[in-house]
C-alpha cells in the first residue's frame, strides 16, 4: 500500500487528515491487497482533495474500483450538508447519469443457437452506436423539455415500454427538481438528435446468460434464474449531459471567489447547494439524468422489439429487473450519528446500493434491498447484487460501479489489436459488433481490473451481496 495510508479493516483503508492540506475529514476506501497493487497515488490524492470541500460529512469515500479521474476520483462518493455544503459537477462527471439496466428474457442459450450472429447484427442495426451516430427518433424542442422533466415516463406514454418499467428504475426514471431553464440552447441542440443512441467508449448493449445463482432467495425476488438469457444496457445522457456539465462547470468556476471557496483542483469547482449557481447546476443535472433514463428506456424498447421479432417473445415476458445510475448527485436522507439528516450525495463511478426496507426502492424488492448492476468489461462477467444495511451505514448506501481501468488507452492500443481480440472472443462464443475494430482494443478485458475481484471486495466488505453472475454471449459497442 502507498505510504501515509492506514489499514483500518481487512478491506478498509483510511487516508488521514493532512494527506493533502486543508482536509476537513479523513478519506476512506475499500480495497483488497491484490487491488492495492494497482492503486494510483493520483487517485488517493483526488480522494483527499474531495475531503477539503466545504460541508463534507463524515468521510471522503471511494469504492474498490477507485482510479485516477479528474475532480473526484472515479469510484468516489461524498455527502454534503444541505446548508454548509456544496454541489460539484466534478463529483458527477461529464456523463451525467451514466448507468446500467438489466432485462431478463424467457429464452435460454439453446434458443439462441445458430441465430446468435443474426441477433447481434439486428441489435446493432436497431440501436445507433458510435461516434456521430444519430437517432431515427425525431424529437421536438417541446418534447425534449417534457423528457427533461418526465424522464422515462415520456417514453412509456408513447408506447416505448410499460408502466412496470418505471417502478423498476432508480427514481422511477425521473428525479424531481428538473429545471429546463438551466439547460442551455447548446445542450438541447445536442440532445435533440441523440435520444435512443448508445454513444461510444465503454458503453454497450450486451446479451448475457445467467451462469450462476449465488443468492437463491434474492434471485427469486428479482425473478432471475440460472440459464436465463438477459440483456444489459450501459449508457448515459449523451451530448446533452456533456454540455450541461461543461456549461455549469464554467459558471461554478467563475463563482468560486464570490463564495470564498479555495480549491486544490479547478475541476472540483462547486457552489453552496442552496445558491443560485448550485441550484441551477442541480436543476440542469436532473434534466440530463432524466434524459439518460429516457435514453436507456428507448434503447431497451428497441432491443425488446428485436427479441420479439426474432423469437416471438412477448414484450411483457422481458421485464426490466432494475436501472441504476452511477454518475449523479442526489438529495437523500441518511442516519448520521443516530439522527436522520438530509445530505447531497455525489456518486461518481459509484452505484446506489440501498439496503432492505430503505425508502425509494421498489416495494417488491424491499425484503432484499435494491438490485445493484455491475457491468463487466468486454468479454468478462457482469454481476447482479443487492444493497445492504452495511452500505447504508458506511457508504451512504453506495457500492462500486464496474471494474475500473488499469491500462491506459495508449498502452491498450500497443498491446491489443481489435481484430485479434474480436476473433479470440468469438472462439469463446462471445460475438462482438462495433463500428470499428480499433474501439475494441481500448476496451479489452486486460485494460480493466478483474471485475470478479472488485465485486468480491464489495461483497466481503458487506457493501452489497452477490446475487448472480452473468456471462456475455454477444455485445454491440460504439
Amino acid at each position, binding site marked *: 500500500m502507498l505510504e501515509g495510508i492506514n489499514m483500518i479493516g481487512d478491506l478498509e483503508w483510511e487516508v488521514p487528515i493532512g494527506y493533502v492540506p486543508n482536509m476537513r475529514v479523513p478519506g476512506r476506501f475499500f480495497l483488497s491487497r491484490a487491488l492495492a497493487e494497482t492503486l*494510483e497515488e493520483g487517485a488517493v490524492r483526488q480522494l483527499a482533495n474531495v475531503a477539503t470541500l466545504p460541508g463534507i460529512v463524515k468521510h471522503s469515500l471511494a469504492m474498490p474500483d477507485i*482510479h*485516477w*479521474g*479528474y*475532480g473526484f476520483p*472515479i469510484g468516489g462518493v461524498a455527502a454534503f450538508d444541505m446548508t454548509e455544503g456544496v454541489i460539484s459537477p466534478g463529483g458527477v*462527471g*461529464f*456523463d451525467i447519469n451514466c448507468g446500467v439496466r438489466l432485462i431478463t428474457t424467457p429464452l435460454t442459450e439453446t434458443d439462441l443457437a445458430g441465430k446468435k450472429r443474426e441477433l447481434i447484427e439486428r441489435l446493432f442495426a436497431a440501436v445507433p452506436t*458510435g*461516434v*456521430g451516430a*444519430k437517432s431515427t427518433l425525431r424529437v421536438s424542442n417541446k418534447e425534449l423539455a417534457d423528457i427533461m422533466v418526465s424522464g422515462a415516463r415520456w417514453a412509456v406514454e408513447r408506447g416505448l415500454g410499460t408502466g412496470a418499467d418505471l417502478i423498476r428504475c432508480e427514481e422511477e426514471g425521473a428525479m424531481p427538481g428538473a429545471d429546463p431553464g438551466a439547460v442551455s440552447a*447548446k445542450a438541447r*441542440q*445536442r440532445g435533440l438528435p441523440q435520444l435512443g443512441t448508445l*454513444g*461510444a*467508449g465503454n458503453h454497450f448493449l450486451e446479451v448475457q446468460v445467467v451462469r450462476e445463482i449465488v443468492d437463491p432467495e434474492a434471485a427469486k425476488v428479482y425473478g432471475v434464474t440460472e440459464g436465463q438469457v438477459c440483456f444489459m444496457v450501459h449508457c448515459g445522457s449523451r*451530448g446533452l449531459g*456533456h*454540455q450541461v*456539465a*461543461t456549461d455549469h*462547470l*464554467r459558471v461554478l*468556476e*467563475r463563482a468560486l471567489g464570490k463564495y470564498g471557496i479555495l480549491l486544490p*483542483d*479547478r*475541476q472540483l*469547482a462547486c457552489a453552496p447547494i442552496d445558491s443560485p449557481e448550485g441550484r441551477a447546476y442541480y436543476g440542469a443535472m436532473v434534466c440530463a439524468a432524466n434524459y439518460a433514463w429516457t435514453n436507456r428506456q428507448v434503447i431497451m424498447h428497441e432491443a425488446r422489439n428485436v427479441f420479439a421479432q426474432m423469437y416471438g417473445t412477448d414484450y411483457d415476458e422481458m421485464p426490466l429487473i432494475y436501472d441504476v445510475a452511477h454518475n449523479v448527485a442526489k438529495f437523500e436522507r441518511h442516519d448520521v450519528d443516530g439522527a436522520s439528516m438530509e445530505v447531497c450525495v455525489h456518486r461518481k463511478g459509484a452505484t446506489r446500493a440501498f439496503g432492505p426496507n430503505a425508502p425509494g426502492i421498489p416495494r417488491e424488492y424491499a425484503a432484499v434491498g435494491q438490485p445493484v448492476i455491475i457491468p463487466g468489461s468486454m468479454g468478462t462477467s457482469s454481476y447482479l447484487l443487492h444493497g445492504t444495511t452495511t452500505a447504508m451505514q458506511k457508504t451512504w448506501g453506495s457500492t462500486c460501479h464496474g471494474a475500473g*481501468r*488499469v*491500462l*491506459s*488507452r*495508449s*498502452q491498450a492500443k500497443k498491446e491489443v489489436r481489435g481484430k485479434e481480440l474480436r476473433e479470440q472472443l468469438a472462439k469463446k462464443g462471445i460475438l462482438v459488433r462495433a*463500428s*470499428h475494430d*480499433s*474501439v475494441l482494443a*481500448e476496451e479489452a478485458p486486460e485494460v480493466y481490473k478483474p471485475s470478479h475481484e472488485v465485486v468480491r471486495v464489495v461483497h466481503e466488505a458487506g457493501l452489497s451481496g452477490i446475487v448472480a453472475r452473468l456471462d456475455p454471449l454477444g455485445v454491440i459497442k*460504439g
Partner: protein
Amino acid sequence: MSFEELDHTADVLMRVRGATITEIFSDAGRAMFHIMYGPCEDRGIVRQISLEAEDLESLLIDYLSELLFITDVENIVFCTFEVDIQGTRLSAAIRGEPFDPARHSAGALIKGISYFGLEIVKEEEAYVVDIIFDI
C-alpha cells in the same frame, strides 16, 4: 506532430507543445480531433469562432468545448485551426470535412475537457500544456 499522448488510465492525456500560444491552441484542436476521428482532410467547410475568457487556461477549455459542440451538432470533422489570440480573446477559422462513418469511426468520443492539471507553462523554448480529455 507537436502533440503526444501520455499514459492515463481512465482518460486521454495529451501533451501539447508550441513556440507560441497560438500554436498551442491550434495543436490542441488538432490533438482533440485526432483522438476523436483519426485522419481528416480540408474539404472546404469553414467555421468561425470568437471567444473571450478571464485567463488563457479557461480560454483553451472554452475553445475546445466549442469545437466539441460544433462537431457534435454539425457532424463536421476539423483538421486545420487558424487561431488568432489577442490577450485572452480568441478568433479562429477552422476547416474540415463532413463526418464520414467509413473513414472517421476509429476514434473515441470525447465527453468533456478537464480542468485537472491544466496549466499553460512556458519552458525555455516553448509553451507546454497537458490536457485531459474525458472519453
